[in-house]
């Protein structure tokens, strides 16, 4: 159908139509993460910073591969991709790697991956395809129950790992798509109400350490040396940073090891200590800009699938950032969510690049109209 020339010109056109401000912001965030990890490893590039860079490059490759895919192909295989990711979650209890009492990782070709990170995006993919395809006159079951089941299955699987934080992000990401795709707001009111009512019931299913975290969140003094210690030390690090920070590589909380998990979940705190309020506000603005651009790009697509998918990915990304910063500033319980592009962690990096790859694809192929399928 195409000749050689055609393929090249198409590829070149695609490269040209990439939104570079968005890519630029992604690279900026990666560089911020690189600087943070360089500080944490006390100037040793070969430890965390090097691996972080390698992962980012791998992420960029995934990004560009996704950019070149035909959107219709992605649409066509949406369910398959989702199904595969669910399978990877299902096999975790049998082939997974245990660490700190939770089994979240599987080993694929020598690389440990956390499937739940990817499920955040594959769920959006599946739901976007589903909502794209339903009709105005579809019944209650078809329009609400089935997508709900699609959402709840991965959430449930992730909760059992157990990984409450990721499960909540998957759930919130999925629900945000229900909203975008036009579910009557009354259902949301009913939903929120019923969740509030079932909270005491859900409480019983939480693991002890999860209960501890939630209780400690509401009352940090309850356990100042255990779970409260992390929140307290994190707040001390941020607060002591002041307006201008203690200076790059001068953070005492981080460099003297008072700060827990500073290369992963608490990396924002470490940046806050060294760069102060100016630094954290700037970082917040970069994230805001990235999200704003994403929304703008999403709304340019002509097909519903593209819009749903892009907005969903954007929402998941936002939830990520919000939960992480909310957690380290003591606004939310400590649930163990990394800060995208900055935290040290392979799965998170690859997954978020996978997400933005899809988003960029939707933008490049914004004029493609996708026919409804029978779900």
């Amino acid at each position, binding site marked *: 159908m195409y000749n050689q020339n055609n393929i090249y010109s198409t590829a070149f056109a695609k490269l040209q139509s990439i939104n570079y401000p968005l890519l630029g912001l992604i690279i900026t965030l990666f560089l911020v993460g690189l600087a943070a990890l360089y500080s944490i490893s006390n100037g040793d590039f070969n430890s965390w910073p090097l691996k972080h860079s390698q992962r980012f490059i791998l992420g960029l490759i995934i990004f560009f591969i996704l950019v070149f895919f035909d959107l219709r192909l992605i649409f066509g295989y949406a369910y398959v991709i989702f199904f595969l990711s669910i399978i990877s979650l299902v096999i975790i209890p049998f082939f997974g790697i245990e660490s700190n009492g939770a089994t979240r990782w599987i080993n694929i070709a020598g690389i440990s991956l956390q499937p739940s990170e990817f499920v955040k995006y594959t769920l959006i993919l599946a739901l976007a395809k589903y*909502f794209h395809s*339903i*009709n*105005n006159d*579809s019944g*209650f079951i078809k*329009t*609400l129950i089935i997508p709900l089941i699609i959402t709840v299955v991965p959430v449930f699987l992730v909760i059992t790992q157990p990984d409450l934080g990721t499960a909540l992000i998957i759930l919130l990401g999925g629900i*945000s798509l229900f*909203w*975008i*795709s*036009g*579910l*009557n707001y*009354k*259902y949301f009111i009913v939903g929120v109400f019923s969740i509030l009512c079932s909270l005491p019931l859900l409480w019983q299913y939480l693991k002890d350490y999860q209960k501890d975290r939630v209780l400690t969140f509401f009352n940090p003094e309850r356990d100042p*040396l255990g779970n409260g*210690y992390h929140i307290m*030390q994190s*707040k*001390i*690090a*941020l*607060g*002591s*940073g*002041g*307006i201008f920070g203690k200076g790059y590589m001068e953070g*005492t*909380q981080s460099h*003297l*090891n*008072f700060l827990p998990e500073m290369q992963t979940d608490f990396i924002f705190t470490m940046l*806050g200590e060294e760069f*102060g*309020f100016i630094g*954290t*506000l700037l970082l*917040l603005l970069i*994230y*805001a800009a990235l*999200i*704003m651009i994403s*929304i703008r790009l*999403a*709304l340019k697509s002509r097909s*519903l699938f593209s*819009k749903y998918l892009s*907005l969903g990915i954007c*929402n998941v990304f*936002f939830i990520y950032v*919000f939960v992480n*910063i*909310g957690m380290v*500033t*003591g*606004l939310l319980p400590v649930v163990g969510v990394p800060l995208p592009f900055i935290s040290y962690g392979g799965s998170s990096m690859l997954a978020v690049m996978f997400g933005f790859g899809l988003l960029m694809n939707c933008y490049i192929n914004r004029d493609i109209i996708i026919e409804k399928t029978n779900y």
Partner: protein
Amino acid sequence: MKKSGRFIFQKYDTENLINRRAALVTIAKAGVFSVLAGRLAYLQIAENSNYKKLSDKNRITHRFLEPERGIIFDLQGRPMAINKQKYEIIIIKEETRDVERSLSNLKSLLPHVNIDVENILKEVNSRKKFLPIGIVDDLTWEDFSKVNVNIHKLEGIYPQIGFKRYYTQGESHSHLIGYVSPISKSEEESNPLSKLSTAKAGKIGVEKAKDTILRGKLGNKNIEVNASGREIRELDRVNSVQGNYIQLTIDSELQKFCYERLKGLSGSVSVINVKNGEFYALASSPSYDPNIFSKSISNETWEILLSNKYKPLINKSISNQYPPGSTIKPFVALAALESGVSHKETLFCNGKHLIEDTSLDSGYKTFHCWKKEGHGNVDMKEAIKVSCDVYFYQIARRIGINKIAEVCKRYGLGEKVFKSFYEEKSGVVPNKQWKLENLGSRWMVGETLSAGIGQGYFLTTTAQLSLALAQLINNGNKLNPKLVYDNEIPSVYDERLIADPKYLKIIKNALDEATNAPGGTSYRSRIIGKYKMAGKTGTSQVRAISIKEREEGLIKNKDLPWEKRDHGLFIGYGPTTDPKYAVSVIVEHGGSGSGSAAPIASDIFKYLFEKKINLKRNEIFNV
């Protein structure tokens, strides 16, 4: 279907719907980001100073630095109490999240070291906050490095280098110098070193008496620590100041000789310079090793020391009081001379002296001379020479107790010799007023007689007796008793204690005869040679002798149990031609002064004369 609120999914006008809903979501996101920014502003701007303090509290730890204790030298400048380096471990409760876990980790790290977790926990919980509590006092280098390597497992536990006191002279000097041990709760208020739980304070002897001089000043430093308590760097430091040194007037060689000479006996020796009041030796026996106190001493060892009947912990030269016995006689004679009694007057001794006592059936109370058959006619010189009791009964009765007491007090009896030693006893010089105040009853004539031969209520210490004799022999010049060189008080006062120099001649002559003339009480212990000693023996009873026993014949001292035997005393000076030293010896339950105490004094004088040790201060410079 078009009315809003009836649909499940709105699938018409999707363009508008998505825009509308996306806009709502965007507004919500902006709201959330504002909240985050607000939260960061609150933490990093509004609460900054608070969190800055907390962050500094996290990383900066204050540590006190132990000062090195002042060194104690002897007369010749020989160090007698020095400091050695030691490795110790302390714990700070507030710097650990789990004291018990830290301690149990330490325990499993050093299984062979005795760590009393229960006691340490008690201590940790009762002391002030952030006060380091010592766990192990003296550690081997191997264990010390083991702790250093595993410091990350031992939150709140810190190994450090401290000082331990070492006494070079061992047990011969232990009573005099004393020892140090941890500061007790009652001393906390007055001792600034108590901020450091590992710091020690003098407990007895010179170590306690001069503690404020010896202790030095605490230093301190601020250090930056990481989360596991390891020191990263020092931020600032004020060095500790070593305590001042002290030089004693004691000659450690002489002291050692005196102590060795007392070995096997329970007693004490005091050697004083009659010209300037400097004490050259103050020995007490039996003794203990003062170096056992630099480690924490076990209860068992302590109990053994406490329960020993020879009381090794007591400094018998200043803390035990004895009736002076016949050693008081030169002073009673002096009182008699001052009261106008002629030394030529003779009194008859038939072995006993009777005084009226209506409470007894016979109507008389009998006072015996030590010599049953009596001394016959004796004058003052003879009475001192042969130590005739009956002579002194009569003299005492004539001049009265108050005169005797006045003279004895003038020469320093009944008063502490060294004001700064809390363990020192003052002795008792009784008079009428004293008895009324202390016993609430009137003075009896018979008590004057007992006092005349140094018995009854009379109590003195070894150091007191040597000082009293020194002040008498040195032409009656008042001396300032000295044990520590502190350049404060003159050694000799321009104050004459003796009323008339010719009295001294009489007393000296008598004392000379008592030692160097045949028939004198200490003739057997005389020194033959260029330099001689002169002195007075004393035997003080520790039991009442019943009439029955007297009739059946006195039981010999050697047949009595040790505790019931008489104390043996001797005071002497020498050389007789130009007196330099005064010596007093008390041998507890030694039997008699001539048999037990005088030979020791004789040996000490021989040592002083023959060795010709240069008892001159060797001043300390550049410590």
